[in-house]
């Protein structure tokens, strides 16, 4: 990957001057890069601000600890509340990326559509006490055509005639265990990892390091797809090392400039006619909160006081099991297949929504760091010694939104740029324990059904999927943006990342983020052509 190699299409010299007709997109991950790409291919120049720098594919490191250091967002976030992150990782409760491509560099490539009922959680789940559920202002049918396009763009296996990968060792264990306990819906499709070369991306060679940055380039990332494609149009001005710190507005309450700190550390004021924010749900909320003014005293577009609230991650779990025969789960795709049977709404289980059971072959260090810290000494050592006889799963479960689970700005603590550090508060909904107990029982049975001799369960501390902090709502008082991600109060401000999710669903969020971004870009392009915005 080389951001200057497109110079024959003039990308190197393309620069947007500081004029008030500029479309500014903040963040180059799944959402921001998709919006930017869609707009430039329709002829609209875009200025894309990215806080991080490009990380060339060949410099990814096949080592969990080194890769964590290479990719991670480098500034502190303070975790509070009763979630595990507050005690285990009080200054880094979420693993997000600061680099061109954002979290698409470390995502697993699991590209699921949300289910029809998950767009209507308030209607389907009812009044869940202690939760702030609302229905999405869109239905699956509204998003379906964009899911279809997103699957094509990402090259999702099992769609558009794209063949699945051969089942790897870890998925073989999951599939057989699932079948043995009566599950019926297992699949190793829906991966945005090329099986064969497609769309200028290589085919997977089963490196075993998907989360550390895919060194072969087989996994879809916005850094290797949308951004080089957008640069090739000659209409994208990508500014890296550019950290947006404030969005300004004019006297009528329309966004008109973005203040950012450039790579040299100098503050810049870029005029804008339209701003899309896609900085990942913690940073997106933080940016809006930092953009307070006399007209918006609680933060930009925050008359509803919903900015930062209803923060959801996913309820996450992990289970590792050892067997008499070898597994070698480290060989190949990290999350290589899924059981869907528990991703339904069945209140008899004691919780709303459901969860996915995802085959997950992690390296020894990460396995050991997930195991219960109170397990140490001989029993734990014996378990780790059986690493090559071990299979693993991750759980991705729906997290109930709560009004007070929220991002706020710390009143005193500043980061290295002098900006207020975000506080991430989560008091888990009381039913979280019921969901965890359920999947613990189910995964235990699943592994033992195929001969596991030992099963260990773990609660991963770091949130990977950040959602909900600028949610879309039919009524302005319930959320921050409308069904196109357009701020209820600021007509030329759009949110283009997972912040807009009113609920987490049980599916990994990336495909939905991309589908929403494609839908939003269509809407913006039409409005621009009509002379609106």
């Amino acid at each position, binding site marked *: 990957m080389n951001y200057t190699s497109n110079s024959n299409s003039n990308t190197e010299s393309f620069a947007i001057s500081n004029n008030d007709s500029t479309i500014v997109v903040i963040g180059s991950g799944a959402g921001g890069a998709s919006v930017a790409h869609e707009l430039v291919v329709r002829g609209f120049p875009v200025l894309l601000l990215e806080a991080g*720098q490009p990380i060339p594919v060949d410099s990814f490191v096949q080592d969990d600890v080194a890769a964590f*250091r290479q990719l991670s967002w480098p500034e502190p976030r303070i975790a509070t509340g009763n979630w595990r992150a507050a005690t285990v990782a009080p200054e880094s409760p979420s693993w997000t990326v600061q680099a061109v491509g954002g979290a698409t560099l470390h995502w697993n490539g699991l590209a699921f559509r949300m289910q029809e009922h998950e767009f209507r959680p308030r209607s389907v789940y009812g009044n869940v006490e202690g939760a702030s559920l609302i229905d999405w202002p869109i239905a699956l049918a509204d998003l379906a055509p964009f899911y279809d396009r997103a699957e094509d763009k990402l090259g999702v296996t099992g769609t558009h005639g794209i063949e699945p990968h051969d089942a790897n060792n870890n998925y073989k264990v999951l599939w057989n265990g699932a079948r043995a306990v009566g599950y019926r819906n297992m699949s190793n499709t829906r991966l945005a990892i090329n099986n064969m070369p497609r769309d200028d991306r290589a085919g997977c060679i089963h490196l075993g390091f998907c989360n550390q940055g895919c060194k072969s380039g087989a996994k879809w990332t916005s850094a290797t797809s949308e951004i080089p494609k957008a640069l090739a149009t000659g209409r994208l001005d990508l500014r890296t090392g550019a950290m947006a710190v404030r969005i300004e507005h004019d006297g009528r309450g329309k966004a008109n400039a973005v203040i950012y700190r450039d790579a040299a550390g100098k503050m810049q004021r870029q005029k804008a006619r339209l701003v899309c924010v896609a900085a990942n749900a913690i940073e997106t909320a933080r940016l809006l909160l930092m953009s307070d003014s006399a007209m918006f005293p609680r933060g930009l577009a925050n008359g509803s006081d919903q900015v930062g609230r209803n923060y959801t991650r996913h309820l996450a779990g992990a289970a590792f099991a050892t067997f008499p025969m070898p597994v070698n789960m*480290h060989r190949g795709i990290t999350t290589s297949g899924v059981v869907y049977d528990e991703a339904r709404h069945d209140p008899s289980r004691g919780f709303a929504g459901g969860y996915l059971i995802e085959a997950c072959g992690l*390296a020894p260090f990460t396995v050991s760091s997930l195991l219960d810290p109170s397990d140490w*000494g001989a029993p734990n050592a014996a378990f780790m010694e059986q690493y090559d006889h071990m299979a693993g799963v991750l759980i991705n479960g729906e997290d109930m939104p709560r009004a007070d689970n929220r991002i706020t700005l710390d009143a005193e603590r500043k980061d290295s740029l002098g900006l207020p550090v975000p506080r991430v508060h989560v008091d888990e909904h009381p039913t979280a324990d019921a969901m965890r107990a359920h999947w613990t029982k189910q995964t235990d049975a699943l592994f033992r059904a195929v001969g596991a001799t030992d099963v260990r369960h773990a609660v991963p501390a770091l949130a990977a999927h950040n959602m909900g902090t600028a949610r879309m709502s039919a009524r302005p008082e319930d959320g921050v943006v409308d069904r196109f991600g357009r701020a209820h109060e600021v007509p030329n401000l759009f949110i283009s990342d997972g912040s807009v999710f009113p609920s987490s669903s049980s599916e990994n969020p990336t495909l939905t983020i991309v589908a929403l971004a494609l839908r939003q870009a269509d809407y913006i392009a039409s409005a621009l052509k009509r002379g609106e915005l």
Partner: protein
Amino acid sequence: MTNQHLWQPSRRALLAGILPVMIGISGCGGGASGALGKDALLTVTQLLRDMFPHRSLAAALYASAAENIATNARGSARTALQDGLDALNDSSSGAWRALPADQRLAALQKIAGTPFFNQLRFSGLVALYGNLNVTRNFGYQGPSWEEGGYLGRGFNDLNWLPDPK
């Protein structure tokens, strides 16, 4: 294709002060060498052997893991480590590492869950299970890029269960 290495590792050094629990590097620098005394190093080595007792591992791997931890413990982290070791020795009426195994483990049980114990445990995870020379003993094969991945090297060779349909 030549690559523009715009990514600057030094910027990531910021992480050292931010993710102490996650990656086991504590303190914000400022300390001198960070090296502990010889006795303290031997105590950390024994702590790792008792926390992560693997008969298949050579003694040198534990010793180098202990040195790794000592080198990375700077400033306040070094003080906390030394204080924890002192407290362990005090509660053992002398040198904890000189106690018989059952008494060493009993002393560890008493401090399990303390910040000192948790930090040392996590540093131990990084230093041991993050070291391919250690995990190779458990069948882990590590980086695969140079070998062309696990395609053709066993990514789907499990044969004691039927293939998924």
